């Protein structure tokens, strides 16, 4: 007979690691759903990477915090990124879904979504290409300031949306919490988890008593559970210490009138 005990506290203890296994299982099924999701022509295009562990979550969170200062034109950007970095620290694992055709292998349908009447020329004319093939390496340095290396084939971007939809739908069926987050997406692409994809969506996944991805506070990065615990541990030990009490020899008398 064996026992598998699961609990969510303290984080990364054996009981919590047992609990996290369920999120990992869900992540694998979500990755499967991302592969089988409807897509234009049934063409292969999706790559997935599941990342877990305290060190990896911290790496992603710190990358997000670094990216928080990358968009000074947008006042909300920094707040969003600082908040979502905290969410990653409370995450069991992250599923990254990338599309490895969006940048250098357009569908060539001429649908118009990316560029209207210019059709696929919208992408081919703005990229380096020859023999009907796109060279992403050429000129990459000039584009390195961009968070996403566009322009992209929008039909395949839509297919990435389908993959994200399949993955999040399965998560819903399995009652695990997930949400596609822009900060996790861009950080994941920059960290290279889906190494062949110029567009990546990051899905943090958790099975915790409270969904980490909703119902947060303003300035959440200063009001995190970890900061609350850290503060409490500091205050508690000091309070405990200075309320001098020799437990062996006396006990505080009850107040008269309360008897």
């Amino acid at each position: 007979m064996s026992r598998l005990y699961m609990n969510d506290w303290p984080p990364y203890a054996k009981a919590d690691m047992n609990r996290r296994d369920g999120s990992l299982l869900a992540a694998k099924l979500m990755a499967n759903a991302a592969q089988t999701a409807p897509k234009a022509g049934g063409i292969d295009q999706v790559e997935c990477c599941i990342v877990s562990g305290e060190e990896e979550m911290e790496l992603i969170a710190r990358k997000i915090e670094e990216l928080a200062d990358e968009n000074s034109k947008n006042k909300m950007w920094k707040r969003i990124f600082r908040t979502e970095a905290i969410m990653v620290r409370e995450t069991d694992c992250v599923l990254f879904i990338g599309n490895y055709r969006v940048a250098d292998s357009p569908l060539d349908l001429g649908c118009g979504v990316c560029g209207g009447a210019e059709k696929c020329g919208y992408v081919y004319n703005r990229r380096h290409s020859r023999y009907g093939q796109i060279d992403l390496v050429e000129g990459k340095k000039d584009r390195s300031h961009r968070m996403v290396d566009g322009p992209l084939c929008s039909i395949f971007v839509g297919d990435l949306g389908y993959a994200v939809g399949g993955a999040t739908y399965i998560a819903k069926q399995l009652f695990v919490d997930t949400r596609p987050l822009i900060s996790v997406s861009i950080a994941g692409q920059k960290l290279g988890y889906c190494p062949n994809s110029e567009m990546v969506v990051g899905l943090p996944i958790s099975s915790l008593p409270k969904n980490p991805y909703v119902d947060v506070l303003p300035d959440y990065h200063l009001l995190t559970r970890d900061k609350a615990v850290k503060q409490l541990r500091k205050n508690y030990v000091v309070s405990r210490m200075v309320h001098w009490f020799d437990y062996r020899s006396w006990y505080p008398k009850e107040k008269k009138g309360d008897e």
Partner: protein
Amino acid sequence: MAIMDGNKSANEYLVEIARMGAMAALKAPNMANTEIKTMILTGEDLEPLSEILVALGATSAFIYGDGLCGKKSFEAQTPIVELLIGANLSQSDLNWNCGACGFDTCAEFNRYAKENLSAGGLFAGPSCNWKVLDFGTAQSWAAASIWQQNVDNRAQASYGAAAMLVGHMEGCTTTVGISIGPCRDTVWYNRPDMAHTFDMDKHEQFVLNTLPQFFVGFCGGGYPQVKDKTGWPVEPPQYLQKGESPELIAKSQEAMGRVGELIAKEKKRLGKV
């Protein structure tokens, strides 16, 4: 107590399934604040779109297939229902300045998109790619929820484009249709309704057109021959070359003429002229 024909009841329920699909599309995760619009077409408001696609399909295999299977469902009195999902993807209110559209900032993209908003082969563009992503996610949730109800369905750009051509889904730059039903094992996969739509000659020509690599002989001489007959090495040599096709252009123009008539007829019926 009423006795119902179960098969008929099941097919009549497809509208309710479409409603569930619309609910799912609206509930789907949405990263970029994309406004999703949905519409459900049935009966006399859907059958003309199948006719348009059959006509348009004279020079497009996938469009032909989508139209023909829809048309046959009406002939069999188990008509499909169409869930249209659309959005205006041509402006970004995000200020993410991410570069995915090829511009450094959303402001630059918005200016370009406003001046250059135009139709491509199926839809209008340019588009903000994070909004395109949301649009795909919404369609995925709709298709998944319909699949969970055990109904064959398929997301089709063809029906979405045809719907916009006759004036539905105003304000949307892109619309995709999810064809729902009829209640049968396979409808949109394998497509049994397309039995005997081609013979072996047409099949071989199709493979030569779309997968020429199969037919290409030894290329070391720089001028590989086409292996279109078993006796090809001693037959007069055939080579692949690129060139215009007046025949295909004429066929396409004839098809567009017929399509134009059908669109005008449907617009008149809908009071959209």
